[in-house]
Every structure is written in C-alpha cells, then in structure tokens.
C-alpha cells in the first residue's frame, strides 16, 4: 500500500498547461480594466476564453493519455522561498486534475453561452462575465496546483468570485447579505484548511503533494487525525456540508447561471476534490474516514429532508446539491475504489444539476422571474425543450436507469453496504433512504413545475420558451445527463487509477451485508416508491399559500433549525462579545486616554492664572525666588542642610 508518489516533469505540449489558468484570467482582467468600453463585445470574449480553455483542456487530455507516467507537473517559479521552506508556483496535470479541467471548462463553456442570453437585459453583463472568467481561472488553479498552497490560492480565488457573484445584484439587501453569509461561513472552513497546511509545514516541512503523501506514513496517528479533520473542515465549508451547509441555499440569490456553475457543478465540489486529492492522508486513518462518511450521510439526509419542504425552485435544487455532495463525501469517505465512484458521481452531478439549474433559469425567464413552484404548473405545454431537458435531469438525479444518476449513485449506495460491521446498515440505510427522499422531492419539484393545473400569478398570460442560445446548452447538458453516467462509470475509474495514490476499484467479490443485485433492486424500488408518492400527492397541484404543517415539515421549512442554532450559539454570543469589547474600548481605553488629556488640560488652565500681566507681581516672585536662593546659600554655608 505504501507506494511512492512520483510526478514526472511536464514536457512538450503539456509544458504549456499554465495557459489553462492564464487565458480566463487575462480575459477577466481585460473585461474589468476596459470597463464600459468592453460592454458591447465583453460577453463574447468571456465565452471565447472558456471555449479556448476547453479546447486546450481536451488537447492536454489526449496528450496525457499517451503518457507512461500520467502525472506530470510543471514548476513555473518559486512562489515563496524562506530558508529551507519553498513553495513552487507549480501545476500538476494528472488524471484527477484532467477530469476536473474538462468538467469545469466544458460545463463552464455551456453555462457561459447560456448566460449571454440570460443576462442580456442586465446592465452589468460585462462585469458578470469578468467575475465568471475570474471564477473559472481560480477554479482551474485550484485543481491544477501541485501543492497545498496553490490549492489554497485557488480556493480563496473561487471564494472571492463566489462572493462577488452571489451579491452580483448588490442593490438587493438579500443578495448582499447572502454574499456576506457565504463569505463568512467559508472563512470558518478556510481557517481549518489554512491551519491544516500550517500543520503540514510544521510536521513535514513541505506542502508539495508528492512530498506530503510520501511523508504522511511517518506521522503519528494523532497528527494525521488532526490534519485530516482540519482539511475536512475546509472541505465542508466550501462544499456546503454539515455543519457549514447554511450558506449554500442562500447563495441562490445570485443569477441562475452562477447557481448552475459555481453552486452546483464546480466550486462546491472542491471539497470532494480536496479529500480525493488528499486520499493518502484520509486513507491513513480509520477514524478520519468514519468522520467523513458520517458527515456525508448526515448531510445527504439533511439536504433531502429540507429540500422536500422548500417551495423556491432554486432552493430545492440547492438543498439537492447539498444532499448530492453528501453522497460524494460518503463515497470519498469509504475509501479505496469508492474515491473513483465519488468522482464519477461528481462529474455526472455536474451535468444533470447544471442542466436542471439552467432549466430553472429558463422557467424563471419565461415566468417573469417567479421562483415559487406553487405558482407554476402545466408548463410542459409551453416550454417543450425546457420540459424535456429538465426531465432528463430529473430522471438522472433520482437514478432511473439508464440515465447518469443510476450509474453514479447506485454504486456508492452499494459500496456503503460493503462495510464490515453494523455501520454498513447505518450508512447503507442512510444512502438508500436518501435515494427515496431524493426521488420524492425531485418528483414534487418536477410535477409542480411542469404538470398539473396552472397556478400562475395574474400578470402572466403566455409563458414563452427561451431563445436558442439558452436552449442549446440545455440540450447539450441533457445529452450529458443521459449518456454521461454509463460512459463515465465505465471509463473514469480505470482512468483515475493512474492518479498517484488513488487506489483502483477492485472489482472482486463484494462481501457486503447484502448482495449487489439486491441493493440495485432495492434502490430502484425505493426510488419508484418515492417518485410515485410525490406524483400521487402533487399530481393535482398544490395550494398557492403556505399551509399549516406537522412538526417535521415545519422544522424542514426552517432548515431543521440549523440556522436558528447557529444564530443562538454563535451569532448572539458573538454580538454580545462585540458589544462588550466596544464598551470596554469606548469606556475603558478611551476613558483612560481622554481622562489623562482632560486632567492635563484642566491643570494647565488653572496654572496659567499665575500669568496676571502685572509686572510688579512678576517682580515680587523674582524677588521671593532670589531671597529663597540666598536663604538656601546661607543655610548651606551654616551647615544646616549638610
């Protein structure tokens, strides 16, 4: 198991892998620096830069396929050099990075294309594309870095872009608040990641991937556990996992393409990337893997339950993202071959979730920005393309064969049942229950939006299908949602085996508590029950006003009180602490300084009364002084003071 991780030097065409990051970055810089002068053509530059990056990514991908050692790195310059400590500004292109590059630039390109039309009426379209390109550049840097500091660089970059894009419509207070919330909650996770990197430096003296992975075997178990937990904290922050999940649904305040690209397909999967990349660390400690699995299982159920109670189309999808990333965490936590399964699910999810988000955007586009699914209904007649493409996404996420979700999610459920002890039932059961709940809430969303009676607001007469520029990306993503699962699940695990340290999927006899066939049948059955129940309940639409509900639904509508918990436990004491400090500062510290000044001022105000302006009184004091001096001389002379 203790294999050495070794990266080869990038040569030939792969030596220019830095172009992937540079092209979107330069494009973003141009759009931001030229300002309004770029308003007319800026969006096309933004699209073109991502397109170019995608073509380049494909080229590099095919180059990489032909290589013996499929992990090549390119060191550009010394980023930090202090004493013995050196951080490269270096890039690593290996199978794991390659699939991420293709996902980010491929799906990113389609969403950029879609956004040209979606944002066409917005005066800030050029700014939008500048931030969007900035995001892609940072995300590519995140997955391409060859050490943890590079990863952190990209990590903060995507955090910044995410903040800028969530509060893109900054004149709306909700959007501005959501941006701040995302930024602050991410900060909690980022602090964990940063401390984790410090620990690597302190114990191993390096942050290069290969040196860290080769050195982690020599570390004490406790150190590895702490290191892994800190990395996990960073991952939960970025990926919207428990306990830092609350920012992701609020992030839907941003424009819909942002929700599709950043908060569904790519950025929020950075946590999964981090854990998959750091797999030698996570594989080195059983407890650590158990924690990751628990976080994943808990979050996937949490996301499902809350998602089932929400009425905002984008928020349902957001909680669904939280839940699906929970599946990915479950996968990476299971270790071994499940790493690859999680990545497959990540890629498939990138397709079908981006598809559904863009579909939601298309619906909103036709319905005057209405987001309440209680106000939709019967749209299948009016938006044929959106309806069909959304249907592929819906069938994919709930895992109906042969769509992609079936091939990507079902193996994770099966893997969860393969654990040795009773936890197999716990985690397998959670994943299975999650599949049923997913089917329930996604079917609810789909039926309420596209079928049943019309419950539109009065100002909508005839909803229209979106223009071609929006439907073409939808169609392409729908094709991905249908086909990607089978393609990915057959090719990606083998491909990822070449990633240094990422163990291959061992397709031996699965000695789980249930046989694979039983699990497959069960999961399809659970899915059908969930979907059927939702169809039965919502086929005739729903009330357009909030209805009284039981304890569970009320709790789910309030995000299972997680926000209230954060508010009571962290926010309130924080505010109290701040107030106490302000009081201490204004009364204590300022009081001391101001009191001293007032004392000196008052004292001198009294002392200056001695300056009467009468010459004779001055003469009197001079005389008195002179007499005192003489008296002192005499006293000394007489020996009185000796």
């Amino acid at each position, binding site marked *: 198991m203790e294999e050495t991780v070794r990266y080869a030097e990038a040569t030939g065409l792969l030596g220019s892998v830095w172009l992937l990051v540079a092209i979107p970055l330069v494009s973003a810089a141009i759009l931001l620096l030229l300002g309004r002068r770029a308003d007319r053509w800026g969006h096309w530059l933004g699209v073109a830069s991502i397109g170019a990056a995608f073509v380049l990514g494909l080229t590099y991908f095919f180059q990489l396929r032909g290589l013996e050692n499929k992990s090549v790195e390119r060191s550009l310059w010394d980023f930090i050099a202090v004493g013995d400590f050196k951080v490269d500004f270096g890039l690593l292109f290996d199978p794991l990075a390659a699939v991420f590059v293709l996902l980010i630039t491929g799906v990113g390109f389609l969403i950029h294309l879609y956004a040209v039309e979606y944002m066409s009426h917005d005066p800030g379209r050029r700014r939008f594309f500048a931030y969007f390109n900035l995001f892609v550049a940072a995300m590519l840097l995140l997955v391409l870095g060859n050490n943890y500091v590079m990863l952190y660089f990209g990590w903060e970059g995507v955090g910044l872009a995410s903040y800028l894009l969530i509060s893109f419509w900054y004149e709306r207070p909700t959007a501005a608040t959501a941006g701040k919330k995302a930024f602050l909650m991410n900060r909690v996770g980022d602090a964990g990641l940063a401390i984790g990197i410090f620990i690597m430096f302190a114990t191993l003296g390096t942050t290069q991937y290969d040196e860290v992975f080769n050195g982690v075997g020599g570390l004490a178990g406790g150190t590895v556990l702490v290191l892994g937990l800190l990395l996990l904290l960073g991952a939960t922050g970025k990926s919207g996992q428990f306990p830092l999940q609350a920012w992701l649904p609020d992030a839907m305040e941003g424009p819909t393409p942002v929700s599709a690209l950043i908060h569904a397909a790519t950025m929020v999967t950075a946590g999964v990337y981090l854990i998959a990349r750091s797999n030698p660390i996570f594989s080195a400690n059983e407890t650590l893997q158990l924690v990751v699995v628990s976080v994943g299982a808990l979050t996937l159920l949490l996301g499902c339950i809350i998602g089932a109670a929400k009425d905002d189309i984008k928020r349902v999808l957001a909680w669904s993202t939280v839940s699906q990333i929970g599946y990915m965490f479950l996968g990476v936590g299971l270790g071994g071959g499940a790493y690859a399964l999680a990545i497959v699910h990540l890629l498939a999810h990138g397709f079908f979730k981006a598809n559904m988000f863009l579909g939601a955007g298309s619906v909103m586009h036709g319905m005057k920005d209405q987001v309440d699914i209680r106000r939709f209904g019967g749209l299948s007649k009016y938006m044929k393309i959106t309806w069909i493409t959304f249907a592929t996404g819906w069938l994919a996420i709930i895992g109906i064969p042969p769509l992609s979700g079936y091939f990507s999610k079902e193996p994770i459920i099966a893997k969860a049942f393969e654990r040795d002890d009773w936890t197999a039932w716990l985690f397998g059961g959670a994943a299975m229950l999650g599949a049923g709940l997913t089917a329930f809430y996604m079917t609810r969303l789909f039926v309420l939006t596209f079928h049943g009676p019309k419950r539109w607001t009065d100002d909508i007469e005839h909803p229209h299908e979106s223009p071609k520029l929006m439907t073409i990306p939808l169609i392409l993503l729908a094709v991905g949602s249908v086909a990607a699962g089978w393609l990915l699940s057959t090719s990606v695990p083998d491909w990822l085996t070449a990633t240094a340290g990422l163990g291959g999927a061992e397709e031996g006899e699965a000695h789980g508590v249930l046989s694979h066939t039983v699990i497959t049948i069960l999961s399809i059955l659970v899915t059908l029950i969930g979907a059927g129940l939702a169809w039965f309940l919502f086929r005739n639409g729903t009330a357009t006003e909030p209805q009284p509900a039981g304890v569970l639904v009320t709790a789910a509508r309030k995000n299972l009180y997680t926000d209230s918990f954060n508010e009571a436990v962290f926010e309130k004491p924080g505010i109290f602490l701040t107030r106490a400090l302000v009081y201490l500062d204004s009364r204590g510290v300022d009081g001391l300084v101001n009191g001293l000044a007032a004392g000196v001022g008052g004292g001198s105000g009294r002392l*200056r009364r001695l*300056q*009467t*302006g*009468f*010459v*004779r009184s001055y*003469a*009197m004091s001079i*005389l008195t002084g002179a007499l005192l001096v003489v008296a002192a001389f005499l006293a000394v002379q007489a020996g009185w003071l000796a």
Partner: protein
Amino acid sequence: MNEFFSVEPDYYLILAAVLFTIGAVGVLVRRNAIVLFMCVELMLNAANLALVTFSRINGDLNGQIMAFFVMVVAAAEVVIGLAIIMSIFRTRRSASVDDANLLKY
C-alpha cells in the same frame, strides 16, 4: 591710612543692603515706570557698592571689575528700557506699569 578716616567695610555693606531694599520695595509698590526704573538703578548701584566693598575686603580688583560690567550692562538696559517706556507712553498715554497688562493668560 588714618584710623579716623577708615570706616569698617560692614557699614558699606549695610548701606548697600538698605539701598537695595529701598530699590526693591520701590519696584514693588510704585506704578510709574520711570520711578520703577530709577528703583532698579538704585538696586544695581547697591549691588555695585557691595561689589566694590567685597573688593576692598578681599584686597583684590575682582569686585571692582564686576562693578564696571554692571555699569555697562545697566547703561545698555537703560537705553532699551527707556525706549520701551517711551513707545508705551506714546501709544497708551500712560507710564503706569499696571496699565500695560495685555500679556497675560
């Protein structure tokens, strides 16, 4: 030297102290700047007398030389002082030092 004509140096010192005291009291109690000025001169000359007497007592010339210095300084001071008094009198029509009290807190 005739004993009859020789006077104890203490007497000169007492005289100097008396003159100095008269001058000091004059400076403190009088208002007219000219009178004040004369009192200051009186004090300076009392100091001169004391210096010359010390010179006599010690049998050297140090005190007398100091007395010359005092005279020179006093002369210079008178020139400037009188000029100031004149200019104050011209603007304020008064030589009272109590009237010139603008420079205060």
